[in-house]
């Protein structure tokens, strides 16, 4: 059957994919999606640890919170991206170079 290591592995892979995307993507929407991917990896981790090891519901509770936080983060993120698009007509982070050294 599927055990803890398998789930951790899946989570780690998801996390790495997300991290890779976060570092390489240039559009804000893909970046946000990658962040979401990372957070979901965390959720898998949390639930898996709770289910197989801790058995104290803390992990699942945390996952719940993390979902809520992720959602609000994305909501704010989309709002900002939207605002930015209205002002700058782009959502490409490479083109956001007004602020730089």
């Amino acid at each position, binding site marked *: 059957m599927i055990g803890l290591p398998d789930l951790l592995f899946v989570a780690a892979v998801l996390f790495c994919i997300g991290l890779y995307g976060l570092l390489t993507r240039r559009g804000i929407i893909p970046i946000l999606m990658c962040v979401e991917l990372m957070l979901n990896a965390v959720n898998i981790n949390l639930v898996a640890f709770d289910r197989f090891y801790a058995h104290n519901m803390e992990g699942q509770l945390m996952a*719940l919170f993390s*979902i*809520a936080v992720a*959602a*609000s983060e*994305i*909501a704010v993120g*989309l*709002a900002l991206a*939207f605002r930015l698009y209205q002002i700058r007509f782009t959502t490409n982070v490479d083109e956001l170079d007004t602020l730089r050294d």
Partner: protein
Amino acid sequence: MGEFGSLGIFLVVALLFPVMALGPAFLLQPKQPSPQKYIPYECGVDPIGSPYVQFRAGYFLYALLFIVFDIETVFLYPWAVEFQMLGLFALLEMFVFVGILALGLGYAWRKGDLTWR
């Protein structure tokens, strides 16, 4: 083979079902290509302008509100389940929680975000 197992199998079957439906149709259907056919249909008139219109901002506000309510639901359902066990405390807690939610709705309402623009 728990409940979720059968659910998983169902998911796979449901994914396969459209393929099963499309397969015979693929064999049956005629194939007579003509360039006119592939023009996007706009009531018989040739398409005007780009089809990629910008996503309307109005929907976006609703989407934000929806996220708020959806997330609140995530917390409210467990609360509802345990409501009877928690008693008065839960009731008061709900007043606070849903009250804040209602405040948020009132905020959006007052700011005109609920009105379609």
